């Protein structure tokens, strides 16, 4: 897994996950978000439009990240889940825990709405 991080003009920190998010690399994502929090970023979008699959550790990492962001007064939104990935969130009821948008652009824009 790799990821690219960028900050848009409205101050939303967007991380695009490329490849799988699984037990072997979940810590990289957690570290990236923590570093951004340490630099006072508070609004996050994690985009999965280039992600093949996510395992339970990856889902768990997102749960941990969400909790950490909320504890520090921030907000996390997810985007770009295809039908297969979305089914994992529905099975585990995590679709009720996360705000999920179809695209990264919509997720970023929803902060301003």
């Amino acid at each position, binding site marked *: 897994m790799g990821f690219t991080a960028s900050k848009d003009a409205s101050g939303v920190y967007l991380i695009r996950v490329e490849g799988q998010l699984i*037990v072997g690399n979940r810590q990289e994502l957690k570290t990236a978000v923590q570093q951004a929090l340490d630099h006072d970023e508070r609004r996050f979008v994690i985009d999965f439009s280039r992600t*093949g699959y996510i395992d339970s*550790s990856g889902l768990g990492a997102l749960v941990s990240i969400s909790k950490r962001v909320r504890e520090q007064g921030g907000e996390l939104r997810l985007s770009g889940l295809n039908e297969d990935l979305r089914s994992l969130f529905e099975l*585990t009821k995590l679709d*009720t825990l996360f705000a999920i948008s179809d695209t990264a652009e919509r997720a970023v824009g929803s902060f301003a709405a």
Partner: protein
Amino acid sequence: MTAPVPASLQLCVRRRRLPGPSGATVQVSLRVPSDVACIEEVVDLLMRHCCTGGWLCRKLRFNLRVAIAEALANAIVAGNQEDRSKWVQVQAEVCGDRIRVEVTDQGPGFDPASISAPVLPEDLDRPNGRGLFLIRHLVDDVSFNAQGNSICMTLRRR
């Protein structure tokens, strides 16, 4: 001083014909180091050798990928405790309209009935415990050996 040589995957693939209408059977055997960095490669290898062409639809290919990744993660992390002196054995077999994948670790085993998934609203913040729950929902049949260190998953084509 020389650096330690990393443990590598050991792969064996056999193709044979079975009598009857089911046709060709593929058997894949993998010996996997207890290193989570291997998981993605093992999943890709199994899919490449067991699900060539359009044998499985996109949805079932996805389900199988996730189920195998989960079983490997459980075996390496919970079973073998990421002890690099231990291995995970993977046996996969395609026969007729089904694929069967067995993942065995060298750990003491566990009681699958003791695992509860955090799907209640008050539990959703729990980061762990979803692996076995996912496997049970992604494949058609799941069973364990008596010791609890070997999981057998079966997925049927439909």
